[in-house]
């Protein structure tokens, strides 16, 4: 993978949004954002209602994902272009999710909804309905998804990258500061994890930094590119953004997103937790 195969620009979207075989999909944390205005032709996926199992804490099954994309009118050979608010956090999460279920051609709009709005590009509230398809997904590709036991075994062995804000890493906040803070779990981070906030990989307008800046960022923060890497955050969406940077833009092999992330780790009995600004010991 590379920047060229994984990212598209706003100009590219303007030019290709009506092409047959290109499907624009908006994915937001604030699921009402799409209804107020979206890029012409874009459909919506709700990261919660559409992508999470309604009962257990896990993803929808392969069959449910197939039913979702068939209903929304996505074909297996379509170029899926994802974008959204929050600097593409949830769009990057959906990108990773599409890859998890084996979709071939997925792209992310660089800068997402924010860059689009700051450029005063057009948004519409026109309802989009695509003709239903028969989508067929692959079994989950677990080479890009990490579970808690693997994360525990990775302490002191693999690169662990905590991509939350410095205050969440240190334990001074439990959630991003646009959300209420009261939570059941303990604050802190996984011992040995490097603190590399997702935001360091992006410019203020939400576009990704240049490849050489990104490489320097992770190398200077202690990521050994010769080792496997697991990224995590609070619920796995910001770490999908970092997974995208490492795996898709920089082309690093063996990068996983731990979607259980802090809301799982910080609630587990019997696992180590480090407090403060230092990584802590294995």
């Amino acid at each position, binding site marked *: 993978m590379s920047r060229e195969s994984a990212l598209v620009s706003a100009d590219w979207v303007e030019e290709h949004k009506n092409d047959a075989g290109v499907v624009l999909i908006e994915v937001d944390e*604030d699921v009402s*954002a799409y209804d107020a205005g979206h890029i012409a032709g874009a459909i919506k996926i709700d990261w919660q209602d559409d992508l999470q199992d309604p009962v257990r804490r896990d993803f929808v099954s392969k069959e449910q994902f197939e039913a979702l994309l068939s209903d929304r009118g996505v074909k297996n050979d379509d170029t899926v272009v994802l974008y959204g*608010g*929050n*600097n593409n956090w949830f769009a990057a999460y959906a990108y990773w999710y599409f890859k998890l279920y084996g979709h071939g051609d997925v792209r992310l709009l660089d800068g997402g909804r*924010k860059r689009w*709005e*700051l*450029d*005063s590009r057009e948004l519409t509230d026109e309802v989009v309905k695509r003709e239903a398809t028969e989508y067929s997904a692959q079994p989950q590709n677990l080479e890009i998804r990490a579970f808690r036991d693997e994360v525990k075994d990775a302490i002191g062995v693999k690169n662990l990258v905590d991509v939350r*804000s*410095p*205050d969440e890493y240190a334990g*001074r*906040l439990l*959630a*991003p*500061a*646009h*959300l*209420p*803070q*009261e939570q059941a779990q303990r604050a802190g981070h996984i011992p040995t994890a490097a603190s590399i*906030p997702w*935001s*360091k990989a992006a410019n*203020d*307008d939400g576009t990704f930094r240049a490849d050489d800046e990104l490489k320097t960022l992770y190398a200077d923060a202690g990521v050994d590119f010769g080792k496997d890497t697991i990224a995590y955050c609070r619920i796995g969406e910001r770490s999908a953004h970092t997974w995208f940077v490492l795996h898709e833009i920089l082309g690093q092999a063996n990068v996983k997103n731990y979607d259980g992330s802090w809301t799982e780790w910080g609630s587990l009995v019997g696992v180590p937790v480090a407090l403060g600004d230092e990584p802590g010991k294995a």
Partner: protein
Amino acid sequence: MCGAKQGGLDLKGVDVDKEAVIQGQVLRGEEPVGGAYVRLLDSTGEFTAEVPTSATGHFRFFAAPGSWTLRTLAPKADPVDRQVVAQYGEVAEVAVTV
């Protein structure tokens, strides 16, 4: 910047004793700016959170006590930085003009 209740966001359902709330409104002249982006930066300048403003130009953060910077990005305007101090039990109200 504090205590400007008029036109401020409703705090119903927010436990201000447990949350260090920073909120306010983005204006261009007298007009509210919806769809602007307000970034909350910590005392080292590192990004902590970001919200788009509502149609009425309003925004809100649940910060930790301490010093913060609000960086506002809006279409056709230069970024604007404003310093703010947050603490439990008090709502820091900030009006940002772009």
